[in-house]
């Protein structure tokens, strides 16, 4: 948990729009890596984790799990500003959780991977819209 705690402190030093941008970037990466035939990010693939390198599937699992933490580190600060957007983010965590629970099946099925990639791309775009909606809410 110490790594997570350190990341949390660093992450929460950012304002909410910046945190949302980080989350959107994660979904964007998930989209790229989930595409059937996606190549491994050479920077990450060359990095040893224990005795093996990350492959795309493991990178996605890592991104999904980290994204759930990002959501957990955004929502408590968002809820007083806009509860509907907070609830929407919580729902994104539910989507990630469903994928994590089913990941082995998804990863080995081309259609499922394509679907995950497509949804992740749409969600990334949706998250990028949130800071603008947020400023509209706070301006009212």
């Amino acid at each position, binding site marked *: 948990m110490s790594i997570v705690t350190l990341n949390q402190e660093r992450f929460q030093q950012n304002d909410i729009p910046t945190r949302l941008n980080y989350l959107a970037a994660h979904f964007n990466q998930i989209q790229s890596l989930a595409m059937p035939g996606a190549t491994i990010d050479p920077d990450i693939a060359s990095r040893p984790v*224990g005795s093996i390198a990350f492959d795309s599937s493991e990178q996605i*699992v890592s991104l999904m799990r980290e994204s759930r933490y990002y959501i957990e580190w955004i929502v408590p600060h968002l*809820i007083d500003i806009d509860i509907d957007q907070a609830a929407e983010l919580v729902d994104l965590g539910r989507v990630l959780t469903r994928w994590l629970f089913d990941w082995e099946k998804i990863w080995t099925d081309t259609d499922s991977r394509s679907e995950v990639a497509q949804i992740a791309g749409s969600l990334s775009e949706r998250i990028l819209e949130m800071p603008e909606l947020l400023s509209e809410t706070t301006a009212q």
Partner: protein
Amino acid sequence: MIIIISKTLDILENRIGGGVKKLFYRLGAIYLIVIIETLATSEQMEQMLSEHKFYIKVAIDIERRILAGGGDMHYDCEQALLLEGSRQQDIWAAGYMPSNRNITYGSMVNIKPRQNRSMEILDVTIRERVAQIIKEFLGEI
């Protein structure tokens, strides 16, 4: 009792053999969720404590009186209950610390704009039902 363990962990274990424990924490790909409908055994308590050591994340279906405990986040417990046929609106999340029997009621998954506009469970009746199930299933160990 149903235990759900991520298949990803199995794959990693098969592929690289020993020394996998550190790796799967690095990847975060393990889920050990216990679902109970009666008093937990000592073994089940240990399983539920395996992720956070002194604290158990739980999700409870207050209508069906089922508790899912363990895992990394409340999301995992909630998802396990949904897979077991629970309805989203009946599921509430809490935390339990066996050492002092303290119950906390705050979780993201409790945010339900039509039912509960907070991470805390605001409805006293729901909170009492959650507490009652936790005490009944986990509190006597």
